[in-house]
């Protein structure tokens, strides 16, 4: 009796664990017709090359009917064929010319006949067309893998409740339905979504375990009362490189990769793998809810507003891995998250995120305020365990976190330091601009795998102040001599308005006269209005180096070269000439003729003269006349200086 009991248990045992071969439990065919049996096997190397067979069950053993080694039993010649598809993990057995004697139990299997690697198939042959075709969808899924079941019932059922239930001793247990009810055992790992065609829907289940194997019914309506159903036979097998054979002890923690623990305030890195097929399709990450999966981030640059600055997604097509980083974790982040691609056949990955108490490893200020133009520093402290890891700073954007590097030439003001003694990573801004505002992440990376991150928000405030850009476009210009300088020079030549890079002369104000004493009132030519320059804004002309030979200046003073405006007591040395107005027809007097002795003017005056020359050149270019001046511009320069 004990022996018998043991054997019954063994039969069930085979069914569950040691039987990776899967096929239809029953097939039926018509008299003289044919039937095809499809058997699945795990795609391990040994399975792909092993012998495949179809045998008929007898009292003590199973007699081979046909095998992939070429054997065909007598009596079946020409009636039976076996075809193997190793790259799909499937082999087909085709039996034709069915007779009533063919009814019975068969096995499709791998290896040698009487071992455990086979699946029992009951073959039924009937006359006439009254047979009920038992069509159940077979799904053969790897352990910890995912499956997508599609059921369609036609347009009539478009708005009727759809459901999936699992067949058990006591009936069909509801797993999920379109009213939002989800069985606890499947919470977080099952999704029901309506397809585009009316009345059809698909159900995705991930993290398949041994207990998920069995018979399901997908249907429309209510089980046992109304509507239609379709049978789904789900079988779970162990693929290559999975856990040791179904090993699960009562005290063991569930297989790690499906539960991710995150510390409050810290960050998690979640990796999802996808098949090669999904390489170029849209990928997104969403949070599971009873009525669907709400999108958080996708590969097109979409980021949900609730997650701004907290989430980034990296795609690595070489490894077929998708990495998602979520930081600033809070208790509300617990739940199930799915990595999805648009491809239906894709293996979907779902992970459960659990938030636990603890301290994040990367610490630092979460918000930093800075003013425009001032320096700023973002600091991130790391513990000993990250000493040998690669550390980085990056700026968060909707399409990812772009690393900020010290060698980036275009932003030379930033640099990234690692102060080894204090174990801090610093991100320095020499000069903060408004565009620097935003989220910055400091993070660690190890062997190409993203580790912990920490988000810091940089807020920039204030008006631009202090520093100005020197640009030739901006007009800078006239000296503003407040109050005017009455009677300063008397010479009415070109107004001196030296300024950096300026080629325009600007006269200001009715009352203000330029140091050159130039009266302005008669000017009829329009002068563009330029904002007054504060004296402090002007850059000293003296900083220019020019190779001007003093002898070239006849009378620099005549060109208004005097920056000691309104100072009566100064001594001014003339550079040649006597300060008289210089006039004359063009080209009448070559400059050289009136060359005096070398003037002993100050360097300043020479520099000013140079600027005056620039003004003059501009004036000449503009064809300006002297207006009401008594003085005419000096003769042609011939570009000489």
């Amino acid at each position, binding site marked *: 009796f*004990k022996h018998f*009991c*043991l054997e019954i*248990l*063994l039969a*069930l*045992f085979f069914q*569950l*664990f*040691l039987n990776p071969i899967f096929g239809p439990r029953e097939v039926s065919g018509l008299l003289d017709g044919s039937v095809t049996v499809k058997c699945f096997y795990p795609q*391990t*190397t*040994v399975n*792909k*090359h*092993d*012998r495949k067979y179809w045998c008929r069950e007898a009292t003590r053993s199973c007699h081979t009917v046909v095998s992939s080694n070429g054997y065909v039993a007598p009596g079946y010649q020409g009636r039976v064929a076996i075809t193997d598809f190793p790259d799909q993990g499937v082999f087909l057995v085709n039996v034709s010319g069915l007779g009533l004697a063919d009814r019975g139990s068969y096995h499709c299997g791998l*290896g040698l006949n009487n071992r455990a690697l086979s699946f029992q198939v009951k073959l039924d042959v009937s006359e006439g067309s009254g047979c009920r075709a038992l069509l159940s969808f077979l799904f053969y899924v790897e352990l910890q893998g995912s499956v997508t079941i599609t059921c369609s019932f036609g347009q009539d059922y478009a708005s009727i409740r759809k459901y999936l239930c699992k067949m058990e001793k006591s009936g069909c247990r509801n797993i999920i339905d379109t009213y939002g009810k989800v069985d606890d*055992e499947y919470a977080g790992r099952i999704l029901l979504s309506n397809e585009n065609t009316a009345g059809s829907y698909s159900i995705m289940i991930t993290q398949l375990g*041994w*207990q998920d194997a069995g018979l399901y019914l997908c249907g429309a309506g209510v089980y046992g009362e109304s509507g239609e159903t379709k049978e789904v036979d789900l079988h779970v097998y162990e693929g290559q490189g999975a856990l*040791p*054979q*179904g*090993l*699960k*002890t*009562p*005290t063991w*923690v569930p297989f*790690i990769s499906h539960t991710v*623990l995150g510390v409050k305030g810290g960050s998690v890195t979640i990796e999802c793998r996808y098949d090669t097929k999904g390489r170029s399709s849209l990928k997104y990450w969403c949070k599971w809810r009873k009525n669907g999966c709400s999108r958080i981030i996708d590969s097109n640059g979409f980021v949900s507003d609730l997650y701004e600055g907290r989430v980034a997604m990296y795609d690595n097509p070489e490894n077929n891995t998708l990495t998602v980083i979520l930081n600033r974790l809070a208790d509300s982040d617990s739940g199930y998250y799915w990595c999805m691609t648009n491809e239906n056949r894709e293996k979907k990955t779902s992970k459960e995120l659990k938030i636990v108490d603890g301290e994040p490893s990367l610490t630092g200020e979460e918000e930093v305020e800075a003013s425009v133009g001032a320096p700023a520093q973002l600091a991130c402290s790391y513990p000993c365990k990250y000493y040998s890891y690669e550390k980085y700073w990056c700026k968060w954007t909707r399409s990812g976190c772009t690393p900020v590097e010290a060698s980036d030439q275009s932003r030379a003001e930033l640099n990234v330091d690692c102060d080894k003694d204090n174990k801090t990573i610093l991100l320095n801004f020499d000069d903060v601009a408004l565009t620097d505002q935003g989220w910055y992440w400091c993070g660690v990376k190890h062997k190409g795998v993203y580790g912990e991150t920490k988000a810091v928000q940089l807020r920039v405030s204030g008006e631009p102040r202090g520093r100005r850009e020197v640009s030739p476009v901006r007009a800078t210009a006239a000296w503003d001599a407040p109050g005017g300088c009455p009677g300063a020079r008397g010479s009415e030549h070109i107004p001196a308005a030296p300024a950096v890079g300026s080629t325009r002369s600007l006269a200001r104000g009715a009352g203000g006269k330029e140091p050159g004493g130039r009266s302005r009132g008669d000017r009829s030519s329009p002068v563009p209005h330029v904002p007054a320059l504060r004296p402090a804004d002007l850059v000293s002309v003296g900083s220019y180096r020019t190779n001007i030979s003093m002898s070239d200046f006849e009378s620099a003073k005549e060109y208004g070269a005097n920056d000691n405006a309104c100072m009566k007591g100064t001594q001014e040395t003339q550079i040649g000439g006597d300060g008289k107005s210089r006039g004359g027809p063009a080209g009448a007097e070559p400059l050289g003729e009136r060359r005096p002795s070398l003037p002993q003017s100050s360097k300043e005056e020479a520099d000013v003269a140079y600027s005056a020359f620039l003004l003059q050149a501009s004036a000449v270019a503009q064809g300006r006349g002297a207006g009401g001046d008594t003085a005419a511009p000096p003769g042609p320069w011939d570009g000489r200086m």
Partner: protein
Amino acid sequence: MSCKTFFSDTGIAYPVLAGYPQSYDDEEVVLVNNKCKCVTVTSKFVPSKENPEEEILERNIRIIVPLKSRENISDPTSPLRTTFVYRMTDLCKKCDPIEIELGGEIYNAQQSTSCDDTETCYTYNRDKCYTTTFPFLYHGERKILQAALTPASCYAE
């Protein structure tokens, strides 16, 4: 958890756990799946015979004895094996490295101490390739060649 040696179907008595999830009714847990010696041990909860209200842990041990195998399975010329020894303590050892998580990092760890790599096998493990060498006389020349004992398992791909 140490393995007790017994071949009956009574086991350790456990009190019924309240609120037992219904899906765990039929769950059978695999404790040992030793392909080398062809031993499988599983356990499940069953109602006790003395007191049907109670559930006890039942352990099932399956041993397939390969009577036609050699003493050294890699050497077909060695004599037939006549002695087969099965020790539960040895079988229950978990010597395969397992991934565990410590502080957020995943490590490979071996669960048992004193793991002896050299375990004598009584039969072939289907996932491993077994070969032997033999002398081959060809054109008067004697060469030592290697041959596969389990061809299906010896493919590279």
